[in-house]
């Protein structure tokens, strides 16, 4: 097997046995990027020199003989909303095209402390707003399984890079499905951790009550390994929760016996692609065969999730993105007369149309006269959605659903109508509103050879049980041996 195709745990073994060096591994991944990225556009910045220097340092650590840190010499890509000191961070936006991060995000710092090689910054929808990656201000990333199709969004570059072996693993962010949807569309594993499980310090904010950083990996074991590194309390993020992490990779093999898996009727809707439903139902049957008990549950407010999400996310976005004013960093419009014009022109020229749409709508739902009808109403429905889940978890230990109603769609297919695009997130969005962990695991292919994803949803801080189930499922299948035709 070529070095670039290695998973984290495979590379770990080979690096520690000194069968390959970290520099060889990093070089193999850089070559793979060079050979494939003209077709995929996963990367916005490739950190060639820094990555090779980090790999050399990793080789020195590995030569020491002592136990190396967990990700020593492993090439990991970062979604371009996550800061890495000294490296450009665009958030997929023209307004940050020249922005050089002055410090590391906490997750980046943790990766570096774990010995990882930061291989580059990957493509995403502008400010993580989108379901297809087509809102990238630079160029849309493509799906490695069919380059006429989208990789999903907003962490499309993270999923595409991992699927195409352009990185051993990647980090993404998930506000309404932005890790799980691309993971499903690209046939890789993606996890949105519980809100508060992973620090958001140094991550460009979109909707702060929903945003969460998570791993995008080639298999479930890698997902657990990466979560072990990034999870945990951070005093620099006041929403980060101070509860211990259980050691996710250590508990993978505990099996499913006695576990109750809830199947919500509201997640198997008319109009979904029949092959998706078949693949997901087969996956559920497989989990049952492994000892899980299947129970029928109801999440009655599911149909209100998309509307609730967009009101809350747009409101938070309009507030968060007020900081892009052309004064302290980022793009500034030239030839403006006064400060008011400086703000307006800078923002009109610097932001793309979806970002402006969300900021404007967010300002509208927060404005006097509409606040109660939209924003407060959405926050109340958010309570109902969260209660649905908490009630469901009295009858089951986790919930299994499809990640999306279809496999990857074509570029341009949903661009004209924002609402159609928003509905791509119909099965992922409620998880963010309720602050729960959600795992996306590949569970088959449709007739066009496009991957299908199974979503496992857990109670707060129960990532461990999701990973255990995902791992048990994955071991019984060989989806992972199929590679995109690149």
């Amino acid at each position, binding site marked *: 097997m070529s070095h670039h195709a290695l998973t984290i745990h495979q590379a770990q073994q080979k690096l520690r046995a000194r069968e390959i060096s970290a520099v060889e591994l990093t070089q193999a991944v850089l070559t793979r990027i060079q050979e494939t990225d003209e077709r995929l556009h996963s990367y916005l910045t490739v950190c060639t020199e820094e990555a090779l220097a980090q790999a050399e340092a990793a080789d020195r650590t590995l030569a020491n003989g002592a136990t190396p840190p967990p990700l020593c010499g492993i090439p990991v890509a970062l979604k371009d909303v996550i800061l890495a000191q000294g490296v450009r961070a665009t958030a997929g936006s023209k307004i940050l095209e020249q922005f050089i991060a002055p410090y590391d995000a906490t997750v980046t710092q943790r990766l570096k402390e774990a010995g990882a090689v930061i291989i580059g910054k990957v493509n995403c929808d502008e400010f993580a707003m989108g379901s297809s990656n087509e809102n990238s201000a630079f160029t849309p990333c493509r799906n490695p399984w069919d380059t006429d199709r989208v990789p999903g969004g907003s962490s499309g570059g993270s999923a595409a890079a991992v699927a195409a072996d352009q990185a051993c693993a990647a980090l993404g962010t998930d506000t309404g499905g932005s890790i799980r949807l691309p993971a499903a569309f690209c046939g890789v594993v993606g996890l949105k951790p519980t809100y508060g499980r992973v620090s958001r310090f140094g991550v460009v904010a979109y909707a702060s009550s929903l945003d969460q950083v998570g791993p995008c990996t080639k298999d479930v074991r890698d997902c657990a390994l990466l979560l072990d590194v990034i999870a945990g309390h951070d005093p620099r993020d006041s929403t980060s929760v101070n509860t211990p992490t259980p050691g996710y990779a250590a508990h993978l093999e505990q099996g499913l016996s006695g576990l109750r898996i809830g199947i919500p009727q509201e997640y198997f809707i008319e109009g979904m692609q029949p092959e998706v439903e078949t693949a997901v139902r087969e996956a559920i049957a497989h989990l049952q065969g492994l000892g899980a008990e299947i129970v029928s549950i109801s999440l009655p407010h599911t149909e*209100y999730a998309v509307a609730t999400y967009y009101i809350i996310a747009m409101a938070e976005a309009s507030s968060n993105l007020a900081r892009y004013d052309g004064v302290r960093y980022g793009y500034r419009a030239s030839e403006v007369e006064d400060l008011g014009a400086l703000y307006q022109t800078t*923002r009109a020229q610097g932001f793309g149309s979806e970002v402006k*749409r969300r900021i*404007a709508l967010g*300002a*509208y739902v927060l404005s006097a006269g509409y606040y109660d009808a939209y924003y407060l109403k959405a926050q109340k429905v958010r309570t*109902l959605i969260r209660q649905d889940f908490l009630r469901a978890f009295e009858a089951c230990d986790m919930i299994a659903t499809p990640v999306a109603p279809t496999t990857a769609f074509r570029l341009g297919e949903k661009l004209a109508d924002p609402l159609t695009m928003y509905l791509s997130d119909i099965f992922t969005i409620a998880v963010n509103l309720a602050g729960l962990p959600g795992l996306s695991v590949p569970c088959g292919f449709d007739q066009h050879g496009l991957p299908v994803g199974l979503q496992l949803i857990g109670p707060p801080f129960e990532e461990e049980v999701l990973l255990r189930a995902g791992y048990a499922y994955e071991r019984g299948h060989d989806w992972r041996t199929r590679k995109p035709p690149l």
Partner: protein
Amino acid sequence: MRVTPDEVRQVAALARLSFTEEELAELTQHFDTILTYVDKLGELQTDSVEPTAHAVAVSAPLRDDVVTNTPSAAQTDALLANAPSRKARFFRVPKIIE
């Protein structure tokens, strides 16, 4: 239409955004589609429901009021290097007082 182009222009100005007439017409159309869709929340009776701001209960943790990060000259330079316009150790902006 639920909103007029003028109302959209007004709210855009509040958000420090400006649009061409053509963009405004399209945005007004999108406002209409999206606001009509989110109206479905009106089907739910929520008078006695408490709003949720954060799914996980968060408190505002306090720390001692001491300086924890005295920036080095290099760090200050790295921050200022991102300024679109600067003079010495200051950000430059257009004149705001006549």
